[in-house]
């Protein structure tokens, strides 16, 4: 198995009590698969991704990538966050070169950076500062930066969540194209049902408090999915039904919290 998440539990302890964020998560992902992790806010999906990235330690359980246990962040797992997280004191090109600077000569790193910036259609912006770019363009640079170090897995934490609808739709298209070209394994966290159906081979639906896997759905709709609106709508309805009880749970808890404070 390529990426294996085994018996992962995560608890956060604050002053008063320990809260379980993830409970017994088991998941196996094949090489080249596009997998979405879908769930309502607070289900721990971002925490799970952060554990795979090596930025957060699980309370128990382990993650294996190609049989090797993950203990810390590494270049074999590229990450794209909700905010582009580009370094403002560097140009676009220098940002993409950042993960390459140790193993390559400058000239070689620049060539690789340009190659990936071309992939996200930003080759005209290499010398620009990040603040001169729109949010969608910044996010494309972040994707190029993560891809440039040739990771085994691309981790994406609601990467299009902060963008407007039109930009998001364009980036879905671009991401799908990149994925078809590179055949990277992608782990994609989202709370949007339609986004997960549009993009992924598999959808892992998570429930909340504690975070558990509710269902592992294979998406059998042929790509491009926009050509099959009926099948998409049917699947969307099914997932909506799965999540409705979870969303109700969150709403109820939040109301109770508000009432007590």
């Amino acid at each position: 198995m390529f990426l294996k998440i085994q018996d992962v539990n995560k608890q956060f302890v604050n002053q008063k009590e320990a809260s379980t964020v993830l409970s017994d998560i088991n998941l196996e992902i094949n090489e080249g698969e596009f997998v979405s992790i879908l769930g309502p806010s607070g289900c721990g999906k971002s925490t799970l991704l952060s554990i795979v990235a090596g930025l957060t330690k699980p309370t128990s359980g382990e993650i294996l990538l190609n049989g090797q246990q993950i203990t810390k962040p590494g270049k074999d797992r590229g990450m794209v966050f909700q905010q582009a997280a580009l370094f403002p004191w560097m140009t676009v090109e220098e940002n993409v070169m950042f993960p390459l600077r140790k193993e390559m000569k400058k000239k070689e790193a620049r060539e690789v950076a340009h190659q990936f910036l071309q992939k996200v259609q930003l080759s005209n912006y290499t010398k620009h500062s990040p603040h001169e770019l729109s949010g969608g363009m910044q996010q494309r640079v972040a994707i190029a930066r993560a891809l440039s170090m040739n990771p085994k897995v691309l981790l994406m934490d609601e990467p299009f969540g902060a963008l407007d609808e039109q930009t998001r739709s364009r980036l879905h298209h671009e991401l799908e194209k990149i994925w078809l070209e590179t055949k990277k394994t992608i782990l994609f966290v989202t709370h949007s049902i339609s986004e997960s159906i549009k993009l992924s081979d598999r959808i892992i639906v998570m429930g909340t408090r504690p975070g558990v896997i509710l269902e592992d759905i294979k998406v059998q709709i042929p790509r491009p999915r926009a050509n099959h609106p009926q099948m998409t709508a049917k699947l969307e309805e099914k997932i909506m039904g799965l999540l409705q009880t979870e969303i109700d749970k969150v709403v109820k808890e939040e109301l109770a919290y508000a009432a007590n404070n």
Partner: protein
Amino acid sequence: MRPTIKRIIFFAIIILVWQGIVRMLGISASLMPAPTDVFEALAQGFADKTLIYDILASFRRLAIGLVIAIVLGVGLGILLAKNKTADETLGTLILALQSVPSIVWLPIAIMWFGLNEKAVTFIVILGGTLVMTINMRIGIKNVSPLYIKAAQTMGSRGLDLFAKVIFPASVPYAVTGARLAWAFAWRALMAGEILSTGPGLGYTLKYASDFGNMKLVIGIMIIIGVIGTIMDIVFFQRVEKNVLRRWGLETNS
């Protein structure tokens, strides 16, 4: 109307009113000299080059003191931000010292270094270092965790993470720190020079005052104010604005 024109009119009115009041009431020049007298004293000072030497001497001290203060402040700020024990001990001391105006150190500085440039430079360093330290510390502490996380996923850690990400990310605070350090150091320098020795603007001001030469006293006060304003507006504010825009901390220019 452009701001520059508004300013010119404003200052022209002040000078006219000032001149009018002094002349009409016949106030003695040893109490309040008229602008024309002040201008005359300044013209003479620049003609015989004494004021030019004073400005250069003051700037030399300020430059030496400020460079040392900024280097020390950056170092101490990093130490406080990175080491919890240092922050809890030395950090408290620095906050306490910050509330003591640096000029009150002058008597002890004169005992240590003698009545000379070193004592004044010491005051200048002290004035700049503390505020630089405090800003640098905040700058390092306020680096967005997102930058750090992103860098970690790209294989950066330890010293590399600090030098390539954390330090550059804190630059906006360092620039603000340097601007404040300059302001504190400039005030400390003038006070130090008045109370100790010259050459320097502060010393010449004291000297003029001892001889009742109020024309020169006010002339030098104006020079001090003008230099301070020019440094702040022309240099520091411009640098600060550019850095803030580039670092994406200011959305509209």
